[in-house]
């Protein structure tokens, strides 16, 4: 039976094998550094393989994953956060923060008007706190507009 424990176990084993092959290309130790840079990574990778084998051989009962709609909405939230990470620099703080916060707020509690207000409130409120109370160097608007 395929369970998420087993899937993760296989993924970890593959990563560990990549680790080991990559570590083999590192130089061996010398007199001043007996082990060198390759030994510890190989130990860690073997540890990963052994514990992942434990997951593959004796997986726990399947985790309580959310239904498809929730899963999609978590995926969407991830995309929003990635987009937010990329847009902070080019678009300034205010607009991306308001949009991202409003979307997340709507996803937690689907009421459009409070969500939009939350987005705007958080964006302006946090900007004031960060910029003026804590003195962080944030840009409110795109730098091109600020001249």
């Amino acid at each position, binding site marked *: 039976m395929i369970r*998420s424990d087993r899937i993760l176990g296989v993924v*970890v084993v593959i*990563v*560990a094998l990549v*680790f080991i092959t990559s570590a083999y290309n*590192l*130089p061996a*130790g010398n007199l001043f*550094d*007996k*082990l060198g*840079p390759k*030994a*510890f*990574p190989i130990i*860690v990778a073997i*540890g*990963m393989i*052994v*514990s992942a084998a*434990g*997951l593959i051989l*004796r997986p*726990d009962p399947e*985790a*309580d*994953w*959310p239904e498809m709609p929730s899963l999609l909405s*978590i995926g969407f939230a*991830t995309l929003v*956060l*990635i987009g*937010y*990470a*990329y847009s*902070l620099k080019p678009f300034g*703080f205010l607009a991306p*923060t308001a949009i*991202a*916060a*409003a979307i*997340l*707020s*709507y996803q*937690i*509690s*689907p*009421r459009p008007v*409070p969500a939009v207000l*939350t*987005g705007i*409130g*958080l*964006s302006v409120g*946090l900007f004031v706190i960060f910029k003026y109370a*804590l*003195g*962080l*160097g*944030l840009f409110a608007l795109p730098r091109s507009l600020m001249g």
Partner: protein
Amino acid sequence: MDILSNLALGFEVALSPMTLFLAVIGCFLGTIIGALPGLGPSNGVAILIPITFTMGLDATAALVLLTSVYYGAMYGGRISSILLNIPGDEPAMMTTLDGYPMAKNGRAGDALVISGVASFVGALLATIALALVAPFLARIAYKFGPAEYFALYALAFATLGGMASNNQAKSALASFIGLGIALIGIDNNSGFTRFTGGNLHLADGIDFLVAIVGLFAVSEVFFFIDSHGKGSAVGVVLGKVTVPWREIWSTRWTMLRSSAVGFVAGVLPGAGASLGSFMTYMMEKSLAGKKGGFGTGVAKGVAAPEAGNNAAAGGALVPMLTLGVPGSGTTAVLLAVLMTLNITPGPTLFADRPEVVWGLIAALLIANFVLLAMNVPMVKVFVRILQVPPAILLPGVTMISFVGIYSLSGSYFDLLLMVGFGVMGYVFRKMDIPTVPVILGILLGYQMENNLRHAMTLSGGEWTYLLSSPISIGLWVAAALGFIAPMFLRRYLRKPQMVTE
């Protein structure tokens, strides 16, 4: 008396207006963070770390602020346990057992006051014990060479992993994943780049703050999207708050016993506050017997876990400060703070930077009195804050995390990594894989490898050197026991799971 002059030095540092101000702010924020369901001490400290650094606080000030948040969150956790039957954080879980029934009987105010006083007793005694025990342990730690340190790190992983999950393979996996992440980047000894896949952003390695904030703060938002922010309405009415003096006096022995047991549970690496509150509740329950009425809303049932978990919080600082090995998730986060501030915890910390250690201890003593004042007379303020809906709170937490990390490094790549760790935190916690060992691995990986390489170079490549001293043999035996014992004890000592009603 050595300790008195040390404490005098500490109070000299702690009684500056700035430090006092930070302690009060930290206590206030901490109590709020602890009270909010879903946010506990480790999340709270994690969110605040980047902000602390960008504010440019010095080591003592940053440490005072963050440990006040830590202590405050330990106090605050009880508020939602009692009023909502949802523990504000994991250690406060046992407080729901008698706290919520008490609140349902119309005695919410009494429950809050008794647990507040119990928190105070536990935390105060633990801080005093910390001042007494830590220098002693630091002296022993001078005997530690690289082999002993390597064994000590193994012990930390073994016990923390052994306690943190119901499946040993999963804890071990989490530890090794953390260690693997720590290896990414340039190897300081040889100058070779490892496991970056040619990505230049990764050459400096993965900053543990990014991982901490991602795993502890960003992952929360996914949980709330999953659950649609259900179950956070205050169900119990809080009337006028009075102090039930006689009832508090009747729990005096419970508080003292629980403080002692909690402190010991906290000092053990890995056990932490959750175990402290669990053990003390069970102890008092069996001492009181059937007539004690535990579970129906009795004062002792509230006092025991609160004294226990707050004492454990203080105890967990002992191994963190003296050995550089954290005793719990939150102390792991605090260790990250120290390392970022270029302070190496360990025995030399007590000799080289006494003002940091004793300033911290003095600040904690002061913070306790501040917290008592906040959590008994002012408890209503925090109850009101509990009503902030998750639809505002969680986006706020996420945005603060972004700004914090962004202002630290100014790199969008770190933000992407943080989101990645957030997803990882969500998936791991869903699969019952503990995230604290991952953090521990990222934090200790560098030191662990260094000590191993150092030990091997000293011994000329002889592996038996790792077991050449009684201290290291003892540590390895303890590590093996700490990892294996929970498998057999699990039948009796079940890790308390989140109560969901």
